[in-house]
């Protein structure tokens, strides 16, 4: 690993940021899928 001071802080900071964003993105996309299934295709103007 590259010699780095405060490695723990940098890793945890970036780690938490990416994990939170990832989780939020997945949750949103999954919610989108379940909702999209209940709506007739023409209502979804983007696909």
């Amino acid at each position: 690993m590259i010699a780095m001071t405060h490695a723990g802080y940098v890793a945890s900071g970036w780690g938490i940021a990416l994990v939170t964003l990832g989780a939020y993105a997945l949750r949103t996309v999954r919610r989108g899928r379940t909702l999209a299934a209940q709506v007739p295709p023409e209502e979804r103007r983007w696909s």
Partner: protein
Amino acid sequence: MTAPHAAPPGRATTSSRGTRVLGALTLAGLVLLLGYALVWSPADIVQKDSVRLMYVHVPTAILAFTACFITTVASAMWLRRRSEGWWVLGGAAAEVGLVFTGICLVTGSIWGRPTWGTYWDWDPRITSTTLLFILLVGYLALRRIDNETGDAAQRGMRGAIVGLLLFPNVMIVHYSVDWWRSLHQKATITRLDPTIEGTMLFTLMLGIVVFGLLFTWLLVHRFRVGWLEERVGATGLDQALVERRAEAGVGVPAGGSA
């Protein structure tokens, strides 16, 4: 956080060609940013490597304020046009903004630990960002309650007024907190302004661009989720009308205007 794989168009999802391209672009940018932020950009002489957190803290702060601005504009447009789209956009921007504000605060306090030795500091930016977080929580709480009334056009007034005031409030809070704290820190160099130039400046700019793309991608998806929630809600109305009229032993209104 992979961009949605090439789902066949038409399959029930909120992704589209546009979001897939945007998603791929964001991912590539993120990899590049991580390279620069963690490896290629130099450590700060004073703070050493903890400065690498700046590349996530500063962009998320900027995008948090942008989200509030979008919500205020969306609320203003809703007040003028009363169309559902603006109402959904207001909510989507606020929610994505809340996530970014949360990340900004967490990375800010982690970054503060090695530099100041404390997880919290009455630094004007941290204080006003925290108040911004609570303003967003309040706005979203109000919207959740407002969502219970069925008629989309009529119910959004409360949320729109608070939404309209969101960005002005953020600015007033930011200005007064800044003014309040600057009385105490006239000469000190706060850790947020280490001298930035060269690769550090480039990495920061890259960070702002990449997180901006991510923000947009999330906003588009969250908007579509909100839009679908409205559609599901709306279809419910016709169904409810049929059930209600069934009580009176009557079918769908013969001449009733749609």
